[in-house]
């Protein structure tokens, strides 16, 4: 059974089917495929043994021996939650796409292939294979922004493309250097784990990776593509971009940066922690000054990625669990916020906080959207009972022993988060709905349900975080170098 390959190829090949299928069924077909993909993910979950620390369910074929490019997929407690997130948000993105979207036979295939490629990147066990997926995923995303985006979509898409292409080059350079300097010429993750480099070499390659993935995450000052991309992207694309694609950066940094350059990591960790503080405070402060709801959520993402960097820098078992939790909870929360902002924009025609007012009005406003928005921003601000609190708590608790001051300053960032999100709620949803606005269209259940589902998951994970931690714990508690010997290679399940 090739379930991991299924996760990659079902959506990617499904995309072809949708593109070629005659008639106007693109949306339902795409939904069907995304649904199947979700079922497949559940199947993976079924086969996954949370007690094992290393890679599981390996699937491996030789591909281009000369380059040591093998088709090697595997899954562990780090990739599993991200793969699930990808499958869930993929479904939600397709479901929440505009039913009347132009060129559906191009749009839905692009979304599907995006899902497939991202899954490939999360599962790849060969560095070149990872790189391949990492680059491939750019094409659908670029097109999704460039074709279905807002007014300045061309600019935003271009900016996104250039940035992430630079990111790709840097990552590739680091990978090539690693294979070369390690003397193995191998791109296999498990092999490279066993051949640590001298510190100086590690430092050079790690800095390449840091900038490379730093662009993707994005870390300040490499972030300026993100607000533009979000503002111009349509809602489903924003959902995927914030929910899953940014996680490729943090995932890459964790898997390859921290995983392969352990010694150098310890050297630069204090700097990274400082960087995290800058990111958190910078993102949060900039978010306060935004008047575009979508930009505000985008800058909040930049701030929240800082927590992940802090936890990665500390690299204690608790902080690493916090990292994964934060990736998932940020994915869910930002996806929910982008969905809701999308609904507000669609109904009111604006995202300007200087204009919006009184949307909680039960008769002519968007009361349920507003209630869900309150839930989302409170989760993002780290109010207990929701997923955001658990992840932030784990991050801070895990990091404070290593980096007390940096952690304290990051906690300050959660305070700032509540400032800007409260401004958002107060301005857009509180107050009196102006009498002369005319009548806004009502939000429909099909628009509310995706955000509602995400809200439920956010609360469930907030109350029962064990449901998520359970899957990752074994992987993250042991350092990766120790894992390589433990890994069980079972190509066929």
């Amino acid at each position, binding site marked *: 059974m090739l379930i991991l390959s299924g996760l990659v190829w079902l959506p990617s090949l499904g995309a072809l089917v949708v593109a070629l299928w005659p008639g106007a069924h693109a949306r339902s077909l795409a939904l069907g495929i995304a649904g199947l993909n979700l079922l497949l993910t559940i199947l993976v979950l079924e086969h996954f043994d949370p007690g094992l620390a290393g890679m599981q369910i390996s699937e491996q074929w030789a591909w281009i021996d000369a380059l040591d490019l093998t088709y090697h997929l595997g899954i562990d407690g780090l990739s599993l939650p991200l793969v699930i997130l990808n499958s869930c948000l993929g479904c939600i993105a397709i479901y929440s796409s505009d039913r009347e979207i132009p060129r559906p036979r191009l749009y839905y295939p692009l979304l599907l292939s995006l899902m497939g490629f991202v899954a490939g990147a999360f599962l790849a066990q060969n560095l070149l294979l990872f790189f391949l997926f990492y680059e491939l995923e750019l094409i659908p995303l670029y097109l999704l922004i460039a074709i279905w985006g807002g007014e300045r979509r061309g600019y935003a898409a271009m*900016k996104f493309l250039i940035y992430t292409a630079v990111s790709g080059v840097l990552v590739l350079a680091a990978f090539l250097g690693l294979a070369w300097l390690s003397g193995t010429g191998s791109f296999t993750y498990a092999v490279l784990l066993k051949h640590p480099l001298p510190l100086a070499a590690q430092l050079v390659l790690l800095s390449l990776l840091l900038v490379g993935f730093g662009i993707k995450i994005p870390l300040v000052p490499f972030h*300026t593509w993100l607000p533009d991309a979000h503002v111009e992207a349509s809602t489903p694309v924003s959902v995927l971009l914030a929910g899953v694609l940014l996680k490729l950066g943090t995932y890459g940094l964790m898997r390859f940066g921290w995983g392969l350059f352990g010694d150098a990591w310890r050297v630069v960790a204090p700097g990274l922690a400082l960087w995290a503080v800058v990111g958190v405070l910078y993102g949060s*402060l900039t978010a306060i*000054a935004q008047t575009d709801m979508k930009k505000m959520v985008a800058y909040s993402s930049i701030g929240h990625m800082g927590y992940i960097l802090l936890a990665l820098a500390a690299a204690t078992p608790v902080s690493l669990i916090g990292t994964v939790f934060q990736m998932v909870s940020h994915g869910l929360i930002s996806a929910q916020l982008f969905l809701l902002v999308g609904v507000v924009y669609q109904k009111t025609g604006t995202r300007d906080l200087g204009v919006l007012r009184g949307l909680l009005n039960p008769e002519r406003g968007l009361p349920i959207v507003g209630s869900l928005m309150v839930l989302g921003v409170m989760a993002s601000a780290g*109010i207990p009972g929701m997923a955001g609190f658990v992840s932030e708590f784990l991050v801070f608790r895990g990091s404070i022993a290593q980096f007390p001051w940096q952690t304290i300053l990051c906690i300050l960032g959660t305070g700032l988060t509540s400032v800007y999100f409260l401004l958002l709620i*107060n301005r857009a949803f*509180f*107050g009196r709905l102006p009498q002369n606005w005319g009548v806004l269209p009502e939000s429909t259940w099909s628009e509310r349900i995706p955000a509602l589902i995400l809200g439920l998951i956010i609360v469930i994970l907030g109350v029962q975080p064990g449901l998520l931690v359970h899957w990752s714990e074994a992987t*993250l508690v042991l350092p990766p170098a120790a894992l390589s010997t433990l890994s069980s290679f079972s190509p066929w399940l």
Partner: protein
Amino acid sequence: MVVMAQFLLHGSWWIPLYGVLGACLALPWSLGLIRRSGPRPAAYINLLATVLAVVHGSIVFRTTWSQEPQYLVFHWLRAADLDLSFVLDISSVSTGAMELVTILSLLAQVFALGYLEKDWGMARFFSLMGFFEGAMSGLALSDSLLLSYALLEILTLSTYLLVGFWYAQPMVVTAARDAFLTKRIGDVLLLMGVISLGTLAGSFNFPDLYEWAETAQLPPIVTALLGLALIAGPTGKCAQVPLHLWLDEAMEGPNPASILRNSVVVACGAYVLIKLQPVLVIFPVASTTLTVLGTLTAVGACLVAMAQIDIKRALAHSTSAYLGLVFIAIGSQWTGFALLLLFAHALAKALLFMSVGAVIYTTNTQTLTEMGGLGRRMPATTIAFLVGSIGLEGVLPLGGFWALHLGLNDFWGSAPWLVGVVLLVNCLTALNLTRVFRLVFLGDPQVKTRRAPEVGWPMAVPMVSLTVLTLTGPLVLSSLNLLPAWQDLGWQMTGLLIGSGLLGCLLGSLVVLTRTWSRPVQWTWKFLQDLLAYDFYVDRLYRLTVVAAVGSLSRLTSWLDRQVLDGVVNLMALVSLGGGESLRYTSSGQSQFYLLTILLGVGLLGLGVLWYW
């Protein structure tokens, strides 16, 4: 019977959940999904849930009275070497506190049934009250710092939503915002303290923390900062200087919520402090700060309260003042005094706020200078205000007297100046309440108080019940042997206490009351009055400092982001691609060309490197 009681005892963790469950069951109405019929079923569901909590709680309370404390442990999350467990402490003190919360919540909810009878948002209100009650009763039971912290945060959220209940009203919008942010400042600082303390001590549970505190050796700077962080959360929650402004503003919220907020919600912060007290001992800075903040607040808030012309705000500031005394008590390690004062204050203040609610409901105004002459026509309300006042002051042997007396007793030998503070607060509170009583209930009716029929039973019954509870509270306490015998009181202290209270009442009855909002002619008086009426202009101070700082910093980073960082990036693009301008105004045909170039470039680069291999 015993088996049943034990079963209920072990199920004590259900009590906080009743409220939450009620809140969830009421969601179809709160969210407006049920439109054809009205929102009252939501209210009844929540009332029922609260009744359940009261009954269950009282059985547990009776059971615990004769028993050693029991602990219920819930493992919430195990991550690596971290075992986050929630411990519930089922003792007579904690279940007693929980009973107080649930009973006051029940009374406030019945009161709300009348006060909000014409409010179509009733369902949302009751949902929030259920949530509120759940968080507070959980806090009463919690024996884990982490759980207590989490519940304090949830209280912050529910305060925000309750104050923001009338979300369309402009002042409510700012009030809710300020309430949330002020409390959140305290909470964030507390989170820093909680995480640091938990890491240092290796556990978040209070018994472990106590044990750790006995042997802990910390550098002085850490001690100082940690101590301050730990008291910051309660400072915000208890509306103490400098995080006190929100309580005044929160008076924009519906009155039934104010009943709870001024009695038990503010007490929650102090309760956590009492729980933390054995740990705070090792932070001398924290104890000193508590005493200083408490004193500042107690005296300052008493003065401010006297200058208020809004009936709710005149009482809200007195809440800050009493919590200031509680802070002093905790700072000087007299937790018995703190608990007794919290209990007495909660009952009396809840009663005062019910009375005030009835007044507002009847007169359609909150302005003291527009009132008068209600006494002859509103017996339940008048008696409630009188009993509430006496319950708060140390004049007649009701709750306030016993609590303040205990305070005097505690401070008598150790800190005479604190005796002075207690007496001053008693005197000024008596003065203020007498002033308010005269303005509202005595004198001639004015245009807005001309027709003032007493409120109906949904408001009158909780008011009368709480009047009875306030009157009988000391009897219950003395039957539990919690109060000293009469002969042990000591005439000096008793005399001073009653004397200060009577002095306050006397001054309050002599002071000249103007029922027009006229201003003193002499500029010093004018200045003084404004200074107090506007709360020492602290809000302006905040606006000029913290708010301005965050605001300008955020504008600075935003400018930096757009102009500098983005500018540099675009410049780099201009240099590297030789066509930044075309990048900015690119058309889709050109960008596809770029896409190809880049992909080709990356591919070629990769191939080149591999070739070289």
